[in-house]
């Protein structure tokens, strides 16, 4: 039971970050493999402004999110757009975002040093009792936030004109551009939002484990797995994928040890991809000649 609750809470963390993969994939059909470094970027920016006592914690969070959003939009414009020009089989953007991840990781390490630093911003201390399991308030906050962000995104995509534009671009960028909407601009906005979410995740996560350059790496792997399991083309996907992945890996590591937990989670990805390549909630697009 403990493992179940902890798994769900952990799944919330992964789901929140997975949302940034899903967002960029829906609109631009690309993934940013440097998301892990945006997590760290957000955490360190917030750490840097932690001393501004006139700013409430929410404001500090906003600064971190904004900085990551701007860098994310720039990354899309200069490292993704030039490398997706040759149709859907062109995946050079994948290599360029991996390269970006190397550069950012290296830079953050050189500037901040490799060891974790304590982060107090937006930190809730203490634990609460959930169905008999002790869950730290911070982790619970992240999990709840994952649900809130998901609902917000779904509502925004269905009810607002920005959401409509986003869905239009995802279905047919060419026609949308004929309607006077710039898919490139929509892509930049999406990347900004997605990297903002990554920075938000990073700040809240850093409050539990500390801010370190490599803090994003384990999250990256798990959240890609979660996004793929749930379906890269579904905004609800991360919640379902996160719950499954979190519970499976937590229960397995509880029973057999930590290494098997992660292995089971990654095997889940393989099983799901074989069974439903588009993910559990993803839509399959037919290839037409």
């Amino acid at each position, binding site marked *: 039971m403990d493992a179940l609750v902890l798994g769900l809470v952990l799944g919330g963390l992964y789901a929140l970050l997975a949302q940034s993969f899903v967002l960029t994939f829906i609109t631009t059909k690309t993934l940013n493999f440097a998301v892990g470094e945006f997590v760290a970027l957000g955490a360190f920016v917030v750490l840097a402004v932690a001393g501004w006592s006139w700013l409430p914690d929410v404001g500090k969070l906003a600064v971190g999110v904004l900085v990551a959003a701007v860098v994310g939009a720039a990354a899309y414009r200069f490292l993704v757009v030039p490398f997706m020009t040759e149709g859907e089989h062109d995946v*050079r953007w994948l290599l360029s975002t991996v390269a970006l991840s190397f550069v950012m990781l290296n830079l953050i390490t050189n500037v901040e040093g490799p060891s974790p630093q304590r982060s107090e911003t937006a930190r809730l201390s203490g634990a609460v009792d959930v169905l008999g399991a002790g869950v730290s308030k911070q982790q619970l906050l992240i999990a709840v936030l994952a649900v809130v962000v998901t609902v917000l995104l779904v509502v925004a995509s269905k009810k607002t004109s920005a959401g409509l534009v986003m869905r239009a671009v995802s279905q047919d960028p060419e026609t949308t551009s004929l309607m006077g909407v710039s898919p490139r601009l929509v892509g930049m906005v999406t990347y900004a939002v997605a990297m903002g979410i990554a920075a938000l995740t990073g700040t809240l996560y850093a409050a539990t484990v500390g801010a370190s350059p490599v803090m994003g790496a384990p999250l990256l792997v798990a959240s890609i797995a979660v996004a793929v399991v749930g379906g890269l083309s579904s905004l609800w996907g991360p919640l379902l994928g996160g719950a499954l992945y979190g519970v499976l890996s937590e229960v397995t590591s509880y029973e057999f040890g930590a290494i098997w937990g992660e*292995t089971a989670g990654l095997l889940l990805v393989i099983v799901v991809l074989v069974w439903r390549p588009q993910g559990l909630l993803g839509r399959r697009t037919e290839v037409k000649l």
Partner: protein
Amino acid sequence: MSILDQESRSAPPTRESSRRPARWPARPWARDALFAVAALAVAFIAILPGRDGAGPSISLMQLVASMAAMTVAAVGLNLLMGYAKLVSLGQGGFYAIGAYATAWLVLDGGWHPLLAIAGALALCGAVGAVVAVASMQLRGPQFSVITLVLAILVERILNEGALFGRLAGYPNHAQHGTTGLPPIEVLGFTLEPPMIANTVATVMVPVVVVTALVVIVSRNIARSPWGSSLSAIGESEMLASHLGVDVFHRKVSVFVLASVFGGLGGVITTLCFAHLQPETFDIFLTITIVLAVVFGGSGTVLGPLVGAVGIVWLEQSDILAQLGDLQQEYISSQWYLSTPGLVGVLFVLTLFLMPKGIVGTIGALVMGRRQRADVAEDDGAGLQETAGLPATAEAVSDASVDGASPAGRAGEPLLVMRGVGKNFGGLKAVADMDLTVGRGQIHAVIGPNGAGKSTLANLLTGVYKPSSGSVRFEGREITGLAPHKVARAGVARTFQTPQLFHDATVLDNVLAGFPDTGRTPLWAAALKPPSRYRRDAEMRAEAERLLNLVGLTEFTRLRAGELPYGKQRALEIARALASQPELIVLDEPAAGLLATETAGLGDLLLSLRAHGYALIVVEHHMDLVARIADQVTCMDQGRLLSRGTPQQVLSDEGVVSAYLGKPMEEHS
């Protein structure tokens, strides 16, 4: 198809070859032999400084060993990534499996070293097969993600599995009482790793020989029909299957092959360094292998070699470290990039400035120069000519009708479709269609847009499985067979928009059409037995004959993408003919053609009929249909509307009204 491929497979001038066909087999053979000798020579020169085992040469031999391991892994990845365009981020995982499995089988398993190496490679192949089968429905980012998951999984197991010593490495003092594997002994020779001064690093001899062999074998594969099939898959899986390639099988094979090469890289590491640390097999390794391929030139024979040597040299030399120091000195002591960051920058710069990599860029320059010279030689004949398919009466009489062509058996029904239907959800795209085509017949299928003509063509060629009804070809049931099986049965097709290999030469495009693309076994592609040389020469002669038939002789060495549209269609027809089909399905062959080109196309199709081919032509140009068709089927809303001779159908009132009530005179 890579630059280098084009060079090798079409370099000798066409005219010369047609004059002296007898010399064909000798020259490719000599070139291959020369390449092999050169590869082995370079390999031995690389280890020459270590021949006396002097202390200072040890680090050089270690560098060579790292380069060899990286080269082998990159060569494997290149087959996957450069040709089949499947970007795998898992090569580092196989590298790690190969390395650890060899060491573990020798030390803990007590296997004979050679057996252990074979076992490790078999394990890589097996893991590769499982991952391949699991991921073959995926393309693009999802495929990369699943391979990345594999690499991470392997890294975690090595980092955290007690069996492999965790961070203490393998072997380690606590578990094995030693930190180095014993040198292996083979046939009485002790293969010493490059570790101890004044001991000759004998292991380097087999290592560089194997590396050279891997390069040679991969070159053979890349330039064989097997390699063409990979390029076809990279271009479009649908196209590949229409060329008779069993796409699923081929993708699994190439992934397994790449995995084994990746594992071999790891084996070399184990043999040369005798001790393994898990942190050397992290994501950085897998990305470095990808970078080696991209940097050197993805999809070229020498690219992975050049890239691997370059990257390993960069990473192990002081240059990157010094660059880091320079930044610290002149820019900021904090805001600077050290080796991994600089590698990332190099990666991005390569993608921006040299997307074809070092070898690809140089190759393109050489090709460009040579091609320009050719065009000049051609006296301007060619592109400047009226773009149009030539009247082929002449070409037909020139071309020797070969015995295998289906002439002379006209009349008996070749294709019989009965009651064929296809539903997409609730939509009946095609319902209850019958179609019979005899040998040596041209059957036109017409109808307004959305009538189900293309769906019918796709049902026939195996793209879609019929919801009902049967398709028989030459008396054989082919209902619901996969496209590659239909293609092998003798049905070739062309597409609405020509699907060509735009970067390959015209000749290579036709060569890809031969059944060999789907049927050459891997061993024959890798080892290149004499029969392969004979067959290559045969194919080339036949390809030239077909190009002559469709009037493209003078464009043989041009890139297909440079052909005018009409000639691209002719090229696609030549490629279809190369598969020695009985029936060719042409999907709107006249779409986008000029009037003169359409007339030329009509001549060509009539000449094909004269050769005994049966044709199904899905078409909108009524004048063309009226001129060439023996029988016309008009479809509307998925059903048969009218059938008969062109005169009957085109004057049918139902047909006229189906075309929005326009009188047919306007069309013809």
